[in-house]
């Protein structure tokens, strides 16, 4: 459990996080989303006591992180996969971290195994691909077998197999009752991995809700309808629907249930060749929810 309470962080005049309050619950993967500059990384840095909060606080399992005796057993973090000395081997990197928390030595071999780096553990980290460095970063986060995992962009640079593996791992870790906080810009991936979302923009909370509710709430569902006759759009509009015609002839229908469309088709004696509901993708919903909070964007 990770609780952010009234957190504010300023760098000089810039307000990076602005009175943020939210709770990351155990047993689920929480997607931590926001446009660039929204304050996600800053929130994580303060949570890890790397930076001082201007106001408010962060509590890990009900306590202050800075006071933990064996911090890696409480929180495992991956902030920047590139933050490994290029001339140091993965094994030495992990061994040094394990020693700083008095973790048993066999943990190093265990996590190397779990992330699939056991065979290359003796190689200099500088020779690793970005995907391998991400795996090493995840291994470091898992080293202390912590209850809370903070992962900032952990799937950047992973290949499709790696992404599928990472997705499975996150689900597994949440299934073991851990708090998994996952920040990413890859919305399609987030849609497959996260149960819950915390969305922030300009340092403030925009949404703290389940993935399903976020998707439902923000965009009215549309139906995609294809029929074998022309002029059906007029009949739908007459029934009060909002209809957009696609160049390929399909109709995007808002404001009507599928059953109502079926009844109109029956009345008009038209054969429906395709009828499906189109949910807004997480990407669409995210962009509309954070449109006002984008710091660096092209003008619309």
């Amino acid at each position: 459990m990770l609780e952010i309470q009234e957190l504010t962080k300023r760098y000089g005049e810039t307000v990076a996080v602005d009175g943020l309050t939210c709770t990351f619950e155990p047993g689920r993967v929480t997607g931590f989303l926001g446009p660039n500059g929204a304050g996600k990384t800053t929130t994580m840095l303060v949570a890890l006591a790397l930076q001082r909060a201007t106001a408010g606080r962060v509590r890990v399992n009900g306590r202050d992180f800075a006071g933990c005796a064996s911090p890696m057993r409480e929180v495992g973090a991956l902030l920047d996969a590139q933050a490994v000395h290029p001339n140091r081997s993965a094994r030495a990197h992990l061994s040094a971290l394990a020693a700083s928390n008095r973790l048993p030595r066999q943990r190093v071999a265990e996590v190397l195994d779990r992330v699939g780096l056991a065979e290359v553990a003796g190689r200099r980290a500088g020779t690793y691909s970005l995907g391998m460095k991400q795996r090493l970063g995840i291994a470091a986060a898992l080293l202390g077998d912590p209850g809370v995992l903070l992962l900032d962009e952990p799937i950047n640079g992973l290949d499709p197999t790696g992404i599928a593996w990472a997705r499975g791992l996150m689900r597994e870790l949440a299934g073991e009752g851990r708090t998994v906080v996952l920040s990413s810009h890859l919305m399609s991936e987030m849609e497959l991995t996260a149960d819950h979302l915390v969305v922030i923009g300009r340092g403030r909370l925009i949404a703290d809700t389940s993935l399903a509710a976020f998707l439902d709430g923000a965009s009215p569902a549309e139906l995609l309808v294809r029929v074998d006759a022309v002029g059906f759009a007029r009949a739908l509009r007459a029934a009060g629907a909002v209809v957009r015609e696609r160049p390929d002839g399909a109709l995007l229908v808002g404001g009507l249930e599928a059953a109502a469309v079926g009844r109109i088709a029956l009345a008009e004696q038209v054969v429906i060749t395709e009828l499906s509901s189109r949910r807004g993708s997480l990407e669409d919903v995210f962009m509309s929810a954070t449109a006002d909070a984008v710091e660096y964007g092209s003008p619309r």
Partner: protein
Amino acid sequence: MIRSEWIKMRSLRSPVWCLITLLGVTVLFGWMIATAQARQWDGAQPWDPVRAGLTGVIVAQIAAAVFGVLAFTTESLRVTVAAAPRRARMLAAKALLVAGFVLVTGVVAALFAFLAGQAAIAGQGVPHASLGDPGALRAVAGAGLYLSAAGLLGLAAGVLTRSTAAAVTSVIVGGLLVPVFANAMPEVLARFVIGYWPTAAGLRILATTRDPAMLDPWPGFAVLAAATGALLVAAFVTFRRRDI
């Protein structure tokens, strides 16, 4: 914590190279300078063969300082401090390892330099010293202590500047160039720098003859130790507080 720092240090090649350089430079420059000074000695000026044989320490202090700088600047701070948020303990472990490794390497280097230097001096038929002479062992051990202090100054500079280049530059300027260019300074300043500038005063630990214009060996070294301590305290205070 110390074990963790030890793993970090031994898993890179640069610390080893720093210590090898330190050893080589101390011996080589000690031998060269001892040879040159013995050749130029006219028999009239005060002659300190021990000091002459250990002069390589002045150059080797750069290697010691770089060793200290790298102990901090090669660190992936966000990773290690997130794993161990008690920052003072990490820095203390680093300081202990830097001081210890440089001390041991420095004493060994000074011992070799002493033997090579005195052999070179004897070869020129000029009075030379042996390890049993008064002050000789203190000078050899003192060379290790001096280099150890240089390593800690490097560590403090690394913490304070957060940059390898800036830290190494400040150590070279502050440790080496300021005393070298003392004679080009206004007289009051020159007298102060020659007598009391920490790295200049600290070098008195290598001397076995008295010089009325300079501090005695241990008071001289005390000035260096105090300056090193002050910079280390500054490093601890800033490192504990700052955002990383």
